[in-house]
């Protein structure tokens, strides 16, 4: 198999009338399938290493400025579809990128650095996905009972040995979960390949097949790619779940003592400020950049130009954008109502009624975690454009993509909501419900009076997050959103318009403004839901 292209391009060129050296990291192509594997694997490896490193520092050590770093570390969680990736590209373009501008034009070094093609996609993935590994690993570390560490210290073990023998071992489920999720998100990612114009990846090939919806998406090639991506993701998901279940260590200690962070040595502090802080700032570039893009009149040259609020005014003035926002809100709210209802039913039945049916329901609701958005979108497209759905309100081509998008949002977000509601039910001791039954209440009455009020905040927190993530759902939006075309009164959601407007003269800034709003909404939803969930203490039970 002969690879096409070059991994690294180093050449001397004349740029802006000066002789300079350009170093551009690109990557070679082995064909879409292998390319997707390679990109996802490299992204996962780098992301996992960085995520673990940060997760081993932040929860375990105390040092000046820790809370700032902790907040910085979760910034990439708040992603603006297309806008974040666009900023990464803008920063690392060797011609008009800010980095090369600083090195070459400001400092005067005759060198310009760029990331393109696969390397650009990988860079953008790493910057946005390390946070998933970090959060999973730190959650695993935070759930370690500190008495286990105290026992090891008490037996004379050094902290380094404890890190190696206890902490890493007990964090393995978190590491595995974070890495597998990263792999799945990376292989199904569609926004970064579109931004870096890298079409030699499975996700892009599927997306491209929808450019001609009447024939392309039904081509055997596109269907094969869709099935392949489902199989890869499911394989990874099931494999990791099995591994995690083997590695899940039962807590045999009574009670739980939270971790007590150690004081970081001066050397350690120096390392944190030399490596971790710069990386976290670096990883926040996309988010900071989205806000700069949102308020600038133009950002084509390395530096953004002007300051304006006009990009936000387009939400009302630009009929296409206005309709997209309205569509997204309608689809998301409808999906949310279904998600909330279904997740309560599923989570309750799997928490309380032990049996094969509840297990089946729970598994069915959880599987979509592993099914990429593009596969779900393609699947619904194929289903709803075929009899008996063809021509009905489900048909995204002949009727409107709205129904299919709403259903796809529901399926995509249901697993997360089921987990949130399930966690809520777990917080309510079963005895509280049994006490109601025992006093003569029916099961429905016992649920509504003794259980529902106690888990209401979990449902609220879950719906808030689900709503925002429906709004920023990318793959479903870009694949199904434009099937009826984009004109006044169109049915496309925000994310489709973001992709459509990207790299147009004024549209890019509007994409930035939409991205900024989505980031703000994500921050509000996350902060509010975590505040209400943490602030509510169920007293007298477990």
């Amino acid at each position, binding site marked *: 198999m002969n690879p096409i292209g070059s991994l690294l391009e180093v050449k001397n060129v004349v740029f802006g009338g000066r002789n300079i050296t350009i170093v551009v990291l690109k990557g070679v192509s082995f064909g879409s399938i292998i390319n997707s594997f390679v990109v996802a694997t490299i992204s996962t490896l780098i992301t996992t290493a960085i995520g673990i490193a940060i997760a081993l520092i932040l929860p375990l050590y105390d040092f000046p400025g820790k809370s700032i770093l902790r907040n910085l570390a979760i910034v990439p969680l708040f992603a603006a579809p297309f806008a974040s990736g666009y900023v990464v590209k803008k920063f690392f373009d060797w011609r008009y990128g800010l980095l090369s501008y600083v090195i070459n034009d400001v400092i005067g070094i005759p060198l310009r650095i760029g990331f393109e093609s696969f390397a650009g996609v990988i860079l953008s993935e790493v910057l946005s996905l390390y946070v998933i590994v970090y959060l999973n690993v730190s959650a695993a570390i935070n759930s370690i009972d500190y008495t286990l560490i105290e026992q090891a210290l008490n037996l004379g073990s050094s902290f380094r040995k404890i890190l190696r023998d206890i902490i890493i071992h007990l964090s393995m489920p978190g590491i595995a979960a974070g890495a597998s999720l990263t792999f799945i998100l990376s292989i199904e990612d569609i926004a970064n390949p579109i931004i870096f114009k890298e079409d030699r990846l499975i996700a892009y090939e599927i997306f491209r097949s929808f450019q001609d919806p009447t024939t392309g998406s039904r081509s055997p090639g596109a269907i094969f790619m869709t099935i392949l991506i489902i199989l890869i993701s499911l394989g990874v998901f099931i494999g990791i779940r099995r591994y995690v279940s083997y590695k899940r260590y039962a807590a045999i200690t009574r009670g739980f003592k939270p971790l007590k962070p150690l004081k970081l040595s001066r050397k350690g502090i120096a390392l944190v400020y030399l490596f971790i802080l710069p990386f976290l700032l670096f990883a926040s570039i996309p988010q900071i950049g989205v806000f700069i893009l949102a308020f600038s009149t133009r950002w084509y040259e390395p530096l953004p130009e002007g300051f304006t609020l006009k990009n936000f005014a387009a939400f009302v003035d630009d009929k296409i954008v206005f309709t997209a926002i309205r569509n997204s809100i309608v689809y998301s709210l409808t999906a949310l109502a279904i998600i909330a209802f279904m997740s309560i039913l599923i989570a309750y039945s799997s928490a309380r009624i032990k049996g094969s049916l509840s297990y089946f329901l729970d598994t069915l609701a959880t599987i979509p975690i592993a099914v990429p958005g593009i596969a779900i979108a393609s699947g619904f497209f194929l289903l709803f454009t075929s009899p008996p759905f063809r021509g009905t309100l489900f048909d995204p081509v002949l009727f409107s993509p709205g129904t299919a998008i709403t259903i796809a949002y529901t399926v995509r977000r249901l697993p997360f909501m089921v987990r949130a509601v399930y966690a809520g039910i777990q917080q309510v001791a079963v005895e509280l419900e049994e006490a109601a039954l025992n006093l003569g209440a029916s099961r429905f009455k016992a649920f509504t009076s003794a259980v529902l009020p*106690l888990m209401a905040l979990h449902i609220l927190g879950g719906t808030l997050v689900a709503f925002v993530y429906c709004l920023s759902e990318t793959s479903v939006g870009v694949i199904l959103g434009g099937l009826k075309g984009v004109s006044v009164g169109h049915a496309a959601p925000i994310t489709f318009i973001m992709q459509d407007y990207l790299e147009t003269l004024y549209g890019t800034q509007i994409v930035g403004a939409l991205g900024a709003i989505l980031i703000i909404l994500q921050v509000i939803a996350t902060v509010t839901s975590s505040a209400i969930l943490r602030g509510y203490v169920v007293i007298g039970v477990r």
Partner: protein
Amino acid sequence: MGFVDILNVTKKFGNVVALDNVTLSIDRGEIFAVLGPSGCGKTTLLRIIAGLELPDSGKIIINGVDVTYEKPQKRRAVMVFQNWALWPHMTVFENIAYGLKIRGVSRNEIVKKVRWVLELVKLEGLEDRYPHQLSGGQQQRVALARALVVEPELLLLDEPLSNLDARLRIEMRDELRSLIKKLGITAIYVTHDQEEAMVVADRIAVMNRGRVMQVGTPSEIFFKPKDLFVATFIGRANVIRGVAEKIENEIVYAKVNDKLIVGLKSSEDLSIGDSIAIVVRPQFIKLGCRGDEDNIFIGRVLSSKAIGLLTEVKIDTPIGILTVAVTGLYQKDISSAVDICFDKENVYIFRYEEVSF
């Protein structure tokens, strides 16, 4: 036939037998304790009576009605949970009134009944508080009040005092007994605390590994244990291993290290030559004997430890190291010689078996 009859109830969780053919009969107005170590099946039994679990086989009959497969809401067997299960989003009043509301009792009647029960459990004035604003003892009373207010036919108590501190537990167990007796309710009281069972209950069923080992009054259980498990689980006991040398009616002569011990035959099927366990409680061993007592041995003091009103003395004797409970302080020097003796009526002799709790 009793007020509550539990007939041949068996329950398995996977391969684990939680209840093994359990049969019990509880009289009306009786406080009946189910006592046993953790995992012996006592809570499972209570949950089956409440209808929160279904048995694999057997029957539950309450007041002559077979309720084995009746829904929990339909039974008039109200439970006080181990963790009290107070709804944290409801006030004391709302918690107590819940069962009455479900039964469609009028608002005025609810207020009257809640006041009555609050007075009964001495919680007047706390009706507007939330559970987290109450002390452990007060929370326990609310849980009890919530059960009592619906005037149950049968009160089920699942280790209701286990979450209280030792002092409060002692206070509450007396109160609980007098309250239940005052109302004349039949109660089944599950506990792992033998002292609690002895104080609260009229009769006790001792359970181990899903089986009922003995049923009797507290004094029967203590003074006439039917097997080695009951003898060693209830109260403290010295267990000495030996061989049955001679059996005369209900008296057994046992050989231990060439010494003879005489005691009561406590296992039905004991024969000469059997490997036996001889059980003597520390409080029945006397230090310093007159010479006409049974089972006299010379020993040496190994240690003595004052525990409140008693002193626990360890004595090295020819039949093994024995623990002796002496009232007040014991001031003999370590290693000094001492006579010990114990009456044959206080020695239980069982066929030897491995006992695990």
